[in-house]
């Protein structure tokens, strides 16, 4: 009897040890996952930094000239040149230059723009809010309209309305955004003259309060509409497809059987369930908020990051171009990282999927 108990205890101890081992392995495993997960982002950042560092230095000629462009040389005094060469260690070896470059970035020093006579980071931060206003409002509106049209269309699959909407939106999706923008600008701005031709606010108007808001909206409406027209189809197709799938499911049949009205089935039963994938896909589009309006901003001279980039291309303001690239990359990486982390919290399966 006693022997049996002892044996039992021994086997239990063995089992517990095994379980503890497994637990340890699991936590190690999760830690390893997390490390590789972050290393993705570290690697992406490293690729961009290297590209930013290497491109101007691979160009023929003086790296100083390549980094700052020929035009900048005309306005730079010898003292300033000496200071920049010293700051970026341009007279040292490549390794030291790379170290100096990284340390400058860590100090938040993205370089100096000769066109704007200001630090690169400060200029970018001036332009960024306009971009976020434009793309943010376009994303919200296109998602709402796309969702509504998708639900309407999916519920009437195969009917004339569905076919018409599908053809129209697929057609619209083919148009490049800058072409849509130019057309809207010509029709509503040049020919009809009901919207402003450029900018985000009327300069020197001295508007305040409600008038300022009106003025901003008046400038926002055409560029935003162009983006909405091109973006709508993404949400639309997704919502429509989800509707089609959901309509075949049991709870819709039940709703029909218990005599729910068509409108209720369309919106409260099926429509509500098609929300989730749409929200997910809209979330995935958040990283595009900074670069998504690049061409539209150029067409409408809307003072966002895209226009800043374009102007820097025209004036060959190389530090600015590199600064924007770095800024955009870092923000996209941060947003991606946050979305990924959020997903792991929301859906534990994602953790084990990789």
């Amino acid at each position, binding site marked *: 009897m006693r022997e049996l108990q002892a044996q039992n205890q021994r086997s239990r101890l063995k089992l517990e040890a095994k379980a503890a081992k497994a637990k340890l392995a699991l936590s190690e495993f999760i830690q390893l996952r997390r490390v590789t997960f972050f290393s*993705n982002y570290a690697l992406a950042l490293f690729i*961009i930094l290297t590209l930013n560092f290497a491109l101007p230095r691979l160009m023929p000629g003086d790296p100083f000239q390549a980094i700052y462009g020929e035009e900048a040389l005309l306005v730079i005094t010898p003292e300033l040149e000496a200071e920049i060469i010293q700051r970026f260690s341009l007279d040292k070896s490549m390794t030291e230059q790379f170290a100096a470059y990284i340390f400058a970035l860590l100090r938040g020093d993205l370089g100096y723009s000769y066109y704007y006579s200001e630090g690169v980071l400060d200029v970018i931060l001036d332009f960024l809010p306009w971009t976020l206003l434009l793309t943010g409002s376009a994303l919200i509106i296109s998602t709402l309209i796309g969702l509504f049209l998708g639900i309407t269309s999916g519920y009437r699959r195969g009917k004339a309305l569905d076919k018409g909407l599908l053809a129209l939106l697929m057609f619209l999706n083919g148009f490049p955004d800058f072409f849509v923008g130019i057309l809207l600008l010509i029709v509503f701005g040049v020919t009809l003259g009901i919207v402003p031709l450029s900018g985000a606010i009327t300069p020197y108007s001295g508007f305040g309060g409600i008038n300022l808001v009106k003025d901003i909206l008046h400038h926002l409406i055409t560029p935003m509409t162009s983006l909405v027209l091109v973006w709508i189809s993404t949400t639309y197709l997704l919502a429509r*497809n989800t509707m089609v799938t959901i309509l*075949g499911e049991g709870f819709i049949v039940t709703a029909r059987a218990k005599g729910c009205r068509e409108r209720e089935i369309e919106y409260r039963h099926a429509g509500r369930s098609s929300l989730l994938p749409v929200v997910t896909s809209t979330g995935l589009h958040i990283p595009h908020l900074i*670069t*998504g309006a690049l*061409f539209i901003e150029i067409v409408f001279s809307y003072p966002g990051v895209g226009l800043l980039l374009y102007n820097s*291309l025209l004036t060959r303001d190389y530090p600015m171009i590199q600064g924007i690239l770095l800024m955009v*990359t870092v923000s996209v990486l941060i947003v991606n990282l946050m979305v990924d982390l959020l997903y792991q919290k929301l859906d534990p399966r994602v953790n084990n999927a990789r």
Partner: protein
Amino acid sequence: MHVNVWGEVIGSNVGKFGLFLIGLMVTLAVFAPVFTPYSPSEKTGGKAFAPPSAEHLLGTNDARQDIWTRLIYGARTSLAVGFGVSLLSTFISVLIGGTSAIFGGFYDRFWMRFVDALLAIPSLVVIILVATYLRPNLLLMIVLLSALTWPGGARVIRAQTLSIKERMHVSAAQTFGAGWSHILFRHIVPDLGPILVAMMIQDARRAVFMEAGLSFLGVSDPSMISWGKMMQFARVFTYMEIWKWWLVPTGMALSLTLIGLSFTGFAIETALDPRLRRGQGGHGTGHDIGHDIGHVDGHGGD
């Protein structure tokens, strides 16, 4: 695959329309000299900014060049970039994605880590920066765009290869001592068929858009005749009537090419997606399609 994908693509209205548009553009591009008496860079005898007439179907631009001629020669650039990128980028995708799936282990982990990193980078801005320094001509443009397009495809190919390599004919080939390149190109690629074509069409669509966009920004080789560049020049003269026969036809040509490609791609993916086979087929849409179009729509911001 037990489905006749090509038959279904040609049978659907969307597929027919898409293929028709692509065919139209290819015809214009290939036989460009047949459709016009001028050469694209030639300064014609007429006035600058001439309106459409019998000699100049779409009038002339500020440099007295025939706009119609430049339009159909521009199709050559767009289609060459689209075709080139879809070939090169798909080739890299198959090579990296396929070998990763076949070899597995450290090699697989290394490449997939690299692919994930590349996918996290906003490619539009990167390519603008690189193009600013390099001013790419046609060939370099194809290489640059491919370098940023292949990672997405590599993930798809890897996933597909992982399942295909378990099939009987692949293990039979392995038993007979076939090397990885034989297995990849003789056994796996033929099985990938329609998926590869769908991928190539998507890559081509994206490349055509990106080339036009880069030229529109003015960061490509100045001697290239390109729709994006024509729109960029035409945009300056919107206060004159000329936009009606300079800007609009060019933009429409670009849009119709993109629409042709996306409709064809849509038809192929519809034929491939088993979830869309029930009910009234032919005009369904799939989750993946919606997502993929959205992917393209980020305009490279992804």
